[in-house]
């Protein structure tokens, strides 16, 4: 027999249970609160009780001889009431609205007081909860006076307010508790959303298969989907890389054959074609192989790399310059880093006709900027040029060598070194590409 399970397995069940518990808690809590508030008598009751006490005190004192009355009255006193007896009146009646209203209430409560002389004097606290201090004297049938001092709590609205407050706090507590539980329930969902986001950016991420039964199923399906996608990509990548490598042998033949062509113009054109195809293959293989580059990161002099690239460019009679220190070490894979910077320099030379490199250390960053004076990149294209196989408009693609992987590779390499590529158009024209790496 299956054990009885109190915790439901599915999300709907769990949410329902939490809501039920919350409602029950609120119900129990507010019942206790209202029970409590009944202990606080309202103002009318207090007045009625005071009137009753006064009448009772008179009735008792009337049966006593005059010399016993004062002592007996003191005996009737009970906090917060004080009762006393005097032969002569000690209280001046204040005929204000408050007193008149209280007298009416007294007489309503105790009809025996209707034709009797009552003297009243009230004082209401200025501070909350504004209790009323009442002094009342009743003329007995023999002309002596029984008096009472009491406090009438200005309860009703304060009590109501306070019980509202309690109910409010209770409600908040229940809502918070329920939200906390629901948050826990939905944690697997949020993890899934995060994972989906990361996976969309090409990362792999296993989702923990926990939580409600149906969420567990989703996580499982998600992981399986990732595995399938990764497998698919892997196969395609390997196939593409294999073709890339295999193409090099026929290209090598072509390149050698080009050397035998007598017509100089045709030979040069052939060689240029071979160079272009080689460059495309190189960038494709760099892009595909980037993830599993076995080169270990090490202390690398980025200044030396920049100088080598600038010298290479000037040697082939292109305009390039370097401005910066002679040495500046970073932690990176030297060959990848050189490829990244080389791509930027080639881009600058190709589109901007020149490449000006400058290297600075800015706090925790090492910034190598490659600037040109070309047309730059249209602002709305800046975000897209980092996407693989993206090329700027077709008019320019005509004289563009490569596959549109250059900047993608740069970014891929820099990301792996904990750095980033920042592109922006210079206000004076041209593009500024910044290689940013953490300083050592």
């Amino acid at each position, binding site marked *: 027999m299956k054990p009885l399970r109190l915790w439901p397995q599915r999300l709907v069940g769990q949410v329902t249970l939490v809501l039920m518990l919350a409602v029950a808690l609120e119900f129990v809590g507010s019942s206790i609160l209202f029970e409590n508030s009944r202990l606080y008598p309202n103002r009318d009751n207090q007045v009625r009780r005071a009137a009753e006490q006064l009448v009772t005190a008179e009735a008792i004192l009337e049966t006593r001889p005059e010399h016993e009355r004062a002592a007996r009255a003191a005996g009737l006193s009970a906090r917060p009431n004080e009762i006393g007896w005097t032969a002569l009146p000690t209280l001046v009646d204040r005929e204000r609205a408050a007193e008149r209203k209280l007298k009416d209430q007294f007489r309503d409560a105790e009809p025996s007081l209707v034709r009797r002389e009552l003297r009243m004097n009230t004082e209401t606290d200025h501070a909350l909860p504004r209790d009323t201090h009442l002094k009342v004297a009743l003329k007995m049938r023999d002309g002596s006076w029984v008096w009472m001092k009491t406090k009438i709590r200005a309860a009703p609205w304060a009590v109501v307010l306070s019980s509202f407050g309690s109910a409010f706090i209770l409600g908040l507590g229940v809502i918070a508790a329920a939200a906390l539980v629901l948050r826990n329930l939905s944690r697997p969902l949020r993890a899934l959303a995060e994972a989906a986001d990361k996976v969309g950016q090409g990362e792999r991420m296993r989702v923990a298969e926990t939580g409600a039964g149906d969420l567990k199923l989703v996580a499982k399906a998600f992981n399986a989907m990732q595995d399938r996608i990764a497998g698919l990509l892997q196969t395609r990548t390997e196939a593409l890389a294999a073709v890339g490598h295999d193409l090099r*042998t026929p290209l090598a033949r072509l390149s*050698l054959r080009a050397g035998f062509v007598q017509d100089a113009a045709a030979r040069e054109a052939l060689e240029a074609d071979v160079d272009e195809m080689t460059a495309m293959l190189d960038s494709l293989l760099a892009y595909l192989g980037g993830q599993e580059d076995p080169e270990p990161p090490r202390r690398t002099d980025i200044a030396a790399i920049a100088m080598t690239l600038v010298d290479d460019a000037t040697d082939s009679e292109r305009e390039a310059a370097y401005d910066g220190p002679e040495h500046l070490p970073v932690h990176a894979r030297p060959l990848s880093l050189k490829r990244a910077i080389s791509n930027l320099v080639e881009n600058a030379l190709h589109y901007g006709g020149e490449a000006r490199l400058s290297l600075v250390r800015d706090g925790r960053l090492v910034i190598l900027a490659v600037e040109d004076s070309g047309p730059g990149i249209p602002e709305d294209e800046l975000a897209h040029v980092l996407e693989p196989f993206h090329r700027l408009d077709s008019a320019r693609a005509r004289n563009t060598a490569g596959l549109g992987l250059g900047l993608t590779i740069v970014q891929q390499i820099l990301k792996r070194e904990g750095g980033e590529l920042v592109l922006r158009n210079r206000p004076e024209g041209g593009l500024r590409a910044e290689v940013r790496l953490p300083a050592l």
Partner: protein
Amino acid sequence: MIALQREIAAAPVAPVVLIVEDDPALRTLLMRLLREEGFQPLSAAHGAEMARVLETNSVDIILLDVMLPGSNGFDLCRSVRRESDVPIVMLSARDDETDRLIGLELGADDYIGKPFSQKELIARIRAILRRAQGNTQSSQPRGHQQMVFAGWQLDPGRRELLSPDGAFVDLSGAEFDLLLAFLSSPQRVIGRERLLEMSRARISDASDRSIDVLVSRLRRKLAVSGQAEALLRTVRGVGYIFTAAVERR
């Protein structure tokens, strides 16, 4: 015609080049190119054939493809190195820096990624042959001997230069060869002509480039708080002198 003349002129000392390449068309092309450039080419399609050729011929240089059926180029390189110092140039379809390093560490003298142009290949072969000839006369370093000078460390096998604080310092091929030339004759005045000769390996148009430019670039890369000037001193009208002592490990 020109090729024929060259062949005749070079005939008495035509260097023997062994091509180990499994692609028949590429093999044929290489044979033709080398013959026209005045070399005496031999060929083999795989390792076993290479061994047979080496048994019966004296070879000056081997062009060795990496991707071969059976034992690959790296294995063959290692086995050749066990027995001889014959220069080896690896040819690879994987123009991959890791492969390059493996090849150089196994004792190959150079590594060329496919595709390569005729000019490039011939220039590299000539440079290596020149260096090999120099080797028999002078005591130029081979293999994995580390060279240490003024805190700097140079690994000729991996073609790597490390600065005194341990950072990898990128050098162009020509700069590296020039530095190697200085390190092989430390504390001796070397004339410009000789330096040009020794480091021509990487310079395709040597005449266009002045040794002075190369030296000044090298100075900049070796600069460590004013020490560089002292490392490479100009000897007016003659050439340069590398002032630091070089220790080999």
